[in-house]
């Protein structure tokens, strides 16, 4: 995690209500200078509203939006030193590529000299690898190229915050991968703070320094991709960041750092808590597929459960198995190629055991 040195933007208790819909509910978040932060969540979770309040398109119903330490609630979008890459780029169809990029610079008062503008535009075109495309018309550009024009149009203004609203949604998978890398490089190269909104966990995990997971207008957890993956606080976050196996359970012993839960089947398991836990509490336990070992012999591990193999999907570096325990239900197990070579391939209908190491079982909010 790259530690935020200085806060450049901040949401303080920000709430936004549209009619009777609470789109954003008391958001508190500090964005550090030079950071790459992503808002992650399904549609309607409030991530876009948060972004639009940073941009100045929406005014918070309650709370404060700060930029550079100043409350900017009443500052119109066109006065904020913030630029956005829109979901469908929103390029001006009546202007050429370079006129699109120069648009922001031309709005500045006092006016910037023409020569400087064209130099900056050229440079921005080079930065997004579109040198020579300046005189083109927007409709002559491919989707990927338009995306870069949109990017150039924003970064040429050297904004304090670059807001990206699902910028990759319209690109195909391969192009998206490329763009993800390019965006990351660009962010490092320019040192501009990036705030990305996405519903794609892979995109968020691969690019961000920090991810802010949202649900129903609230921020549910903020942290580095690794933190969110390893120590999710809720079933929602664990489910959204990567895949996991979830089971309902009740806490029977809430000793610090060592929790015992009882599964619906009556089986007792031990796990690590990510939240304060009381005895008797109904919780959710989570175990990541790649942390489960699949063996033919019962291992002397923390827990070993007998399962029947139901399905197998070969994924190259991994093989994904669906294994069923009579009492607990289905387990998704991800077996690395090497482990599979050691143990041999399991066939459907075969009997086997699943097991995991101490501490792999996470106790989460239900």
């Amino acid at each position, binding site marked *: 995690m790259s530690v935020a040195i200085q806060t450049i933007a901040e949401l303080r208790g920000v709430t936004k209500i549209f009619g009777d819909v609470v789109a954003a509910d008391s958001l508190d978040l500090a964005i550090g200078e030079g950071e790459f932060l992503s808002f992650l969540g399904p549609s309607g979770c409030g991530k876009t509203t948060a972004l639009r309040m940073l941009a100045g398109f929406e005014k918070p119903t309650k709370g404060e939006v700060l930029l550079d330490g100043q409350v900017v609630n009443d500052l119109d979008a066109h006065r904020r030193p913030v*630029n956005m890459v*829109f979901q469908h780029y929103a390029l001006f169809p009546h202007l050429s590529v370079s006129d699109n990029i120069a648009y922001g610079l031309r709005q500045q008062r006092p006016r910037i000299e023409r020569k400087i503008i064209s130099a900056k535009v050229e440079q921005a075109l080079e930065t997004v690898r579109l040198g020579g495309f300046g005189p083109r018309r927007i409709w002559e550009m491919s989707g990927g190229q338009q995306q870069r024009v949109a990017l150039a*149009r924003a970064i040429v203004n050297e904004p304090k915050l670059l807001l990206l609203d699902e910028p990759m949604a319209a690109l195909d998978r391969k192009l998206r991968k490329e763009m993800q890398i390019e965006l990351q490089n660009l962010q490092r190269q320019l040192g501009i703070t990036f705030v990305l909104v996405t519903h794609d966990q892979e995109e968020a995990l691969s690019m961000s320094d920090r991810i802010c997971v949202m649900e129903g207008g609230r921020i549910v957890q903020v942290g580095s991709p690794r933190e969110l993956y390893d120590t999710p606080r809720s079933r929602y976050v664990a489910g959204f960041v990567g895949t996991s196996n979830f089971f309902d359970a009740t806490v029977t012993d809430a000793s610090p750092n060592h929790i015992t839960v009882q599964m619906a089947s009556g089986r007792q398991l031990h796990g690590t808590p990510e939240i304060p836990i009381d005895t008797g509490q109904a919780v959710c336990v989570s175990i990541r597929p790649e942390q489960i070992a699949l063996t033919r012999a019962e291992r002397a591990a923390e827990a070993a459960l007998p399962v029947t193999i139901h399905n197998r999907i070969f994924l190259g570096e991994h093989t994904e198995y669906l294994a069923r325990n009579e009492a607990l239900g289905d387990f998704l197990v991800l077996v690395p190629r090497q482990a599979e070579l050691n143990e041999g391939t399991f066939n459907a209908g075969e009997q086997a055991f699943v097991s995991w190491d101490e501490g792999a079982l996470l106790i989460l909010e239900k």
Partner: protein
Amino acid sequence: MTQRGRNALLLTPAGLWLLVMLVLPLLVVFVFSFGERGAAGGYVPAFTLEQYANLPARWTAFKNTLILAPLGTIAALLIAYPLAYFLAVRCAPRWRTSMLILVIVPFWTSILIRSYAWIFILGGRGLPALLETIGINDVRFINTPFAVLVGIVYGYLPLMVFPIFVSLDKLDKRLLEASADLGSTPWRTFRQVTLPLSTPGVATGCMLVFILLMGEFLIPAILGGGKVFFVGNALVDLFLQSRNWAYGSAVAMTLVIIMLITVSIYMKFISRLGGHRDDVSLM
């Protein structure tokens, strides 16, 4: 059937229609314009340029038309644009349909009847009487060019509002946000984004209204009291009253030629102004 054959088939009805309803009549008018008036009116075949030489006798009609048609177009545009802008951009969607219907409703009534209503509004017991109550005396509206202008703008407003509304409505509102995001004030956003992107609508609206105004005769007849004379009125008189078909044809041909010239200049101007692909949709 070949693609070409199918295309030909698609165009046949329109082609025939144009041939019978436009090309042939225009040809007839063209031929008539070189003829002479019969003793009891009508047309007698001849080849003479006399009718064209006599055109200056209708100079006032041409002058009035060429002043009031563009003026009416501009006035309609100045009123229609803000209205269309409000409907397309500002109006809450749940009100939009009813507001649009309100714009159309007057079209359900004949323009004749609507223009008659203006006789009473602009007549002595209408607006002038109202003005008298605040001390402004002896104002005359009815039977003046101003009254004709009012009638024109009123009658043709929907024709101007709709194309502009459509172009503003399909304008991607995110472009306005993008412009604001890039530091443009609302006014500059309007000038640099909204206005250029609505030129196709403006062009279509102006064209529709202008062309129709060039041939207008009803509103000047009703609200101009026969004193504000358009080419259309001259034509009605020539064909229905004095039945001088040859001269009428010459006047009509001249009007057609003037319209062709103005419209083609206008099209050139507009296509240069906009220059982006959507402008092809003009007309």
